[in-house]
Every structure is written in structure tokens, then in C-alpha cells.
């Protein structure tokens, strides 16, 4: 109750402050009227306020890659960038959305903490006639523009790389938070597209942390979830799985971990048990994980070039603000990650039965040999970090030269 009241108060405050802000802005504008206009010049873009509601900055990529790219695109186009971080709280995010609308947002880019809990906030934006871009995470609503990486594609790229290396044997599946549809649905779907399920059915591959006797539902009953994608939880779970495998006298041949924080926990467990490093997947392109790829502790890191995702969202937001129809939006990004269906939004059928307009970018699988790609792309992780402690004979040695 108190929090909600406080939030309302803050929202009001934010409106007042925003009003003051524009007030002084126009004042200084009139004072310097004799000087040539320095900002924009491209019609009405100077009026555009693009707001972003982040669900959290806990993972480094949001603050280091997505945010600066959106901000740069918006500001280069003469718009104003504002944002708020909900710190993993759905409730906080609703407050943030109200505040951002109060600050005069023209377009809202929304990274939802929870796709259902965020719906009231979405409604508030729609009531104010503000277009909403669902950024990286789907919101079930036909009116949004969904800009994301192909999460199914991420899973597919992970499994393709690992299956190519270990076509048959004993697999361990380390999944993320059970409440995240990426963890429970999209990534496993991608694994299946790469042929994991077929190989399990044919008996080529055994899932070690699956139901006894293989009698469970695929993929829900297979693999181990990791609450909040927590590294230590993943480490503890992996240690138990290694112990269990040792007790049963079987070896772990490959591990599919859904993202980098869990993959980091898996590597820690493998090191604690001196198990060696079976091929392991991850995603995100975090510094520690790319270093592990170079050192041969993680086989593949599926990298979502968030720089480009941010650019795409920033471009789409500016175009929406200028009144471009959704289907007429055209984005201009790096071709290797550009959507397979072209640079304008296309229809996407959601699991919830909606059809939304979407821009779905392609992920980039990085093995040790491909590390040069990420070094050249202006990714926030530096070469020094990626190549730390890499010695001759390590898989990433050549890329690090």
C-alpha cells in the first residue's frame, strides 16, 4: 500500500519535474533564438521522447550494450532518451512505466520483467496513445511491436554446435529460471529443431538429468532448472549431477546450458570436481564466458549482438514517433544478424495465440575460432578480457593473436 502511494506521488513529481524541464528548455530556446538551431534539423524528431523500461541491470549486457545503442540512435536523430530500471520487480516496473509516461514518452520500449504482470502498464501506455515495443521479451498483446533475437534460433545454434561435436552420448541440460518462457519453451524448442529430441528418441543421446526410465514429458521433465539463472545454484546443481553420474558410473559427454550465468556455474562445478571440460553451450557473450571459450572451458557461446538489437529498437522507435506505420518501418543493421524475413516487421504468431508485428534478429554462435568476430564488433567485452590467461595450445590462442 505504502509503496503504491509513494509510487503515485513519485509519478506526480515526475510529471511536475518533466514540465519544469520542458519549461526551462523552451525558455533557453527562446533566449538563444538568434543562434542557428543545433539539434536535429530533421523535421519533428527533436520532439521525440523515447522511453525505455528495463527490468534489470543485473546482467551486464543491458547497461553495457543495449542501452547505449538505443540512446545513441535516439539522440543522433535528435530525440530525447529517458529510462528506468525496475530492478527485477514487476511492481516497480508498473510504477516506472507510469513515470515514463508522465515524463512525456512518445514511444515506450519495454523489457518486461514478467510478461503478464506488465499488462496494466501496457494498457496505460495504449490509453495514452503511446506505441509500445516489446524489447527482447514477448508481451502477449496484438498491438505491440516485438523486437528480439530469435530465441528459438539461439537454442538451435547452441544444440547444433554441441551436437556437431558430440553426436551421441550422455547429455546434461541446465535450464534457466522456470518462470521464463525462454528457459522453459523457446530454447528447448531450438534444441529440438537442431535434432536433440530425435537423437534422444533414437537412443543416440541420453539425458542424464532426465526422469528415471525416460518416462517423462519432453522437454518439461528433462534437465534442471536454475532459479533466477543464479550462478551458484547452477554450480550446486551441476555438482550434484556430476556426483550422481559418478555414482552411476556414467560419464558426462556434453552439457547444454541455456545462458552464460548458468554456464559459468557449470564450469565452476567441473573445475571443483576436476572433471575436465565436456562441450558446453551458453548464450549472451559475457566476458567471463568468452574467456572460458578461449580457454577451452566452454565450447560455444551463442552471442546475441545486442548492439544491433539496440540499434534496431532505437530506429524503430524514432520511426514510430515520426508517425511511420508499423509495417513501413525499415531498419538498417549489420547484415549477419538482420532478420531472415527482411528489414521490416513481419507477422509473428505468439505461443499465446496472438499475431504481432515483429523484427526477429539472428544470433551468432561463437566457438573459439570465431572469437575474432566479437572482438571486431565493438562489443563491450574487450579483447584483453576475452584473451586473459590464454596460452599456446588453448583453443582461442589463434584468435587472440
Amino acid at each position: 500500500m505504502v509503496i503504491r502511494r509513494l509510487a503515485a506521488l513519485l509519478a506526480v513529481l515526475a510529471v511536475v519535474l518533466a514540465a519544469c524541464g520542458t519549461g526551462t528548455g523552451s525558455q533557453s530556446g527562446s533566449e538563444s533564438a538568434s543562434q542557428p538551431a543545433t539539434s536535429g534539423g530533421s523535421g519533428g524528431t527533436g520532439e521525440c521522447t523515447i522511453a525505455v523500461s528495463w527490468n534489470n541491470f543485473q546482467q551486464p549486457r543491458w547497461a553495457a550494450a543495449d542501452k547505449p545503442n538505443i540512446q545513441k540512435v535516439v539522440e543522433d536523430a535528435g530525440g530525447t532518451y529517458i529510462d528506468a530500471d525496475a530492478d527485477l520487480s514487476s511492481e516497480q516496473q508498473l510504477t516506472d512505466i507510469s513515470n515514463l509516461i508522465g515524463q512525456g514518452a512518445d514511444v515506450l520500449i519495454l523489457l518486461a520483467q514478467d510478461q503478464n504482470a506488465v499488462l496494466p502498464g501496457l494498457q496505460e501506455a495504449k490509453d495514452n496513445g503511446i506505441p509500445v515495443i516489446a524489447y527482447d521479451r514477448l508481451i502477449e498483446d496484438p498491438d505491440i511491436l516485438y523486437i528480439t533475437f530469435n530465441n528459438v534460433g539461439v537454442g538451435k545454434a547452441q544444440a547444433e554446435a554441441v551436437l556437431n561435436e558430440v553426436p551421441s552420448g550422455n547429455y546434461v541440460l541446465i535450464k534457466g529460471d522456470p518462470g521464463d518462457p525462454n528457459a522453459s519453451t523457446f530454447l528447448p524448442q531450438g534444441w529440438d529443431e537442431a535434432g536433440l529430441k530425435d537423437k534422444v528418441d533414437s537412443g543416440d543421446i541420453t539425458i542424464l538429468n532426465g526422469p528415471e526410465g525416460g518416462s517423462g514429458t519432453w522437454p518439461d521433465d528433462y534437465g534442471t532448472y536454475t532459479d533466477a539463472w543464479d550462478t551458484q545454484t547452477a554450480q550446486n546443481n551441476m555438482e550434484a549431477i556430476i556426483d550422481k553420474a559418478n555414482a552411476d558410473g556414467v560419464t558426462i559427454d556434453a552439457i547444454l546450458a541455456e545462458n552464460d550465468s548458468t554456464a559459468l556455474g557449470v564450469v565452476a562445478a567441473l573445475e571443483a570436481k576436476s572433471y575436465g571440460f565436456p562441450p558446453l553451450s551458453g548464450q549472451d557473450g559475457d566476458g567471463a564466458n568468452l574467456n572460458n571459450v578461449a580457454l577451452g572451458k566452454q565450447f560455444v557461446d551463442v552471442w546475441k549482438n545486442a548492439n544491433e538489437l539496440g540499434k534496431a529498437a532505437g530506429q524503430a522507435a524514432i520511426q514510430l514517433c515520426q508517425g511511420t506505420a508499423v509495417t513501413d518501418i525499415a531498419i538498417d543493421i549489420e547484415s549477419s544478424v538482420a532478420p531472415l524475413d527482411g528489414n521490416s516487421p513481419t507477422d509473428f504468431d505468439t505461443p499465446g495465440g496472438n499475431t504481432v508485428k515483429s523484427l526477429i534478429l539472428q544470433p551468432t554462435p561463437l566457438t573459439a575460432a570465431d572469437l575474432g568476430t566479437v572482438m571486431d564488433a565493438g562489443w563491450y567485452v574487450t579483447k584483453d578480457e576475452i584473451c586473459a590467461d590464454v596460452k599456446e595450445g588453448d583453443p582461442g590462442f589463434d584468435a587472440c593473436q
Partner: protein
Amino acid sequence: MANVADTAPVPGETRTTTSAARLREALSATEIDVRLFGMLVALAVILIGFQLLDSGFFSPANMVTLAVQAIPVAILATGMVLVIVSRNIDLSVGSLTGIIAMTYAMLMTDWLPNVLGMGVDFPFRWLIALLIGIVVGAAFGALQGFIIAYIGVPSFVVTLGGLLSIRGAIWYFSNGAAVTRLDPTFQLLGGGGRGSIGELLTWAIGALGCAFVVFALWNGRRQRRRFGFPVRPVWAEVAIGALGCAAMLGLAAFANGNYLPPGLATQYAQEHGIVEPPGGLKVPAGFPLPVILLIAVTVVMTWIATRRRFGRYVYAYGGNPDAAELAGINTRRTILLTFVVMGILAALSAAVVAARLNGATLDIGNSYELYVIAAAVVGGTSFAGGIGTIPGAVLGAFVMQALSYGLSFIGVNSPGQNVVAGIVLILAVAFDTWNRRRAAR
């Protein structure tokens, strides 16, 4: 109990002949802490239960994993006992552990080598980092303790603020990224094959433990004899001594049943010029270092709680704050110190976590406060204040982790684990409440 209790000499009058009563009498003659004993039984039941579900469960290697996983929470729980006993709470332990873990990582990867010029080869770099971490923990604890004890802000509020702000500070500190690649010596604190003390030292620790039990019994008896107090019957002393000794040596033997992983064993064989037999060399690894750390923490904390003025004042304050104040105890200083102790323990816990991960992530210590409080409470610490033991809290942490590890082992996913952990927490406290009410009658 009323007026008569005064005139009735306690022992000897109520001789009953039922076997249950006789058992109770025998138990009380040994003066074993019945509660602690009950916890051990509960732990045993859990382990046996998992063993029945999966015959590969109860092996030395697995129990060592379980123990190491329980240690970060167990270390913190020993301090949480003192905090809760003195009618406070510390919600910031998880964040504090997180920020100190990040401090270690930053120290070893950046600050020490780049700012102070201490490269990888600098001697005792790990110890320098550890000491700095301990100072940081103590300082945070002192700050929070000062606000609680001297300014009078409720501990719930202060440490909730600590939980939020420290967690936020970690992010700024590390720019949001995981920091890995710690000092190789520091990593040994995390255990594993390399971070274990080996067969001989493990036996030595077992023997030391045995000697300690015997000495403690002998010394206690001598002390009581000194003043002519009633002492335990000799048979009870011998039984406890034998049992304690057997437990210590048994534990050492069990730990030595934990062998080095094959890769390390091969390396060991090469280094010692041993030809590896088919099927691999079996090299006993013994206790991992974090277990040694936990034993040390438990012994020291128990000593502080029961044999130091500070500990006594903590319990006195928890039982009756007014009485403690009227007895001339500096209660504010006592409360402040409990938080300093908590901060130091957070530094030790963070060392184990960071060493295990070989780095620090932003989420280290997330929701630790809940597990730590749960461990203390399952271990018999009462929120009413004044009641709780250090070994109980350590056992509480092991009970919680045994469930978590066991469920992981048999393939139950984390939502299921949380359900079980929650139910066990409530059951433990319900049983304790029932038991106390029964005892009070």
C-alpha cells in the same frame, strides 16, 4: 512447579522404574544436549531416506560435496545465532557476502596487481585479499551495528536498507559483469580435489578432534572436582569419550574415502612416480579446506558464545534486555559487536563462495539471508531471543542443504526443492515449539 520445588531436593526422590524413564535418566546423566542429538537424528533420517531412493547417494565423495555446498550458509548461520539471540535480525548478510566476494575478485584481478603492483607471484596475495575482505566485512557490520545499537533504528530496517543498498553497490563496483580468475592459492579455499588436505592431515585432524574430546571431558571433570561438585558417572564420561573419539576418527576415515578425481589422481601418480593401476589410482583426498574452515569457525564461535563474556552478555540480553542493562552490561557495545562478528563471518563465507566459483558474479549471496535465518531457526534459535546454539545452527544448515542436494541428486527441480525446504522449516519450528511447551509443563 511451585513452592514445593524449593524444599524438595531434586535428584533421587522421583525414582521410577519404567524403562522410558530409565532411558531418560541415563541420557540426562550423560548431559548430552537432547536437542542437538535430535537434529543429528533428523539429518541421519534425511540421508538414509535419499540413500533408499538412490543407492549411489551416501558415498564419501557425495557427502563431501554436500558439506562444501552447505558451508557458506553454515558459516553465516553461526553469527546469525548471536544476532537473533540478542533479539535482532540481519537481512544484509547475503548482500554483504556478495560485495565481499566481489571485493576479493576485484582485488585479485585488478586492484592488487594494477594499483598496488602485486602480481600473481606476490607472496601471500591471497591472505592480503582475505584480510582486506575481513576488514571490509567488519566495517560494514560495525556501521550497521552502530546505527542499530547507538542510534536505535530497528535492525530489521537497517539491515533491509543494507540488503538493498549493498546489493546495488555491487553492481556499480563491477560494472555489472562477472569477475573471474582468482589467485590459484585463494581458489584452494573452495575445496575440490586440489583444495583438500590429503590423507595424512585428515587423520591428524581426526586424532586432534579425539584428543580434544578427551581433554575437554578430563578438564571439565577436573574443574568440577576442584570444587567438589557432583560429576557425571564414570561410565557416562567413558561412553561420551569413546563415542566422541569414534565419531572424530570415523569422520576422518569417511573423508579419506573421498578420492581425488581421476584427472588429478593421474597427475599425482606422475608427480610421485607411481605407475597407475588399471582402473585408476585411488588417492584419498580427505577433508576439503572449507570443511576445516567451518570446523574452526564453529569451535571459535562456540567458545565465544559459551565461554566469553561477550557471548554470555548476548544471551543475557536476549533473555531479558532490562536485566542485562541493570546488571551494568554495556548492551549497546554488545549488540554492535554481534554485527561486527556477522561481518567478519560474511567475509569468510564470501571467500569460500568466491573460491568455489573462481570469481564473483553479481548474484552471489542472493537470498542467503533467508537460508541463513532458516538454518539458525531449524537449528533451534528462537525469535523470542535468548535461545540458540552455534552447533545447532551449523546442523540446521546441513539439514537444509542435505535436502537441497539430495533432491538435486535424485533429479527434483528447484521449485520442488523450495517447497520441501519451506515445509521442513515450518515443521522444524513447530516441533521445537511443541517440544518446549511440553518441557515447560
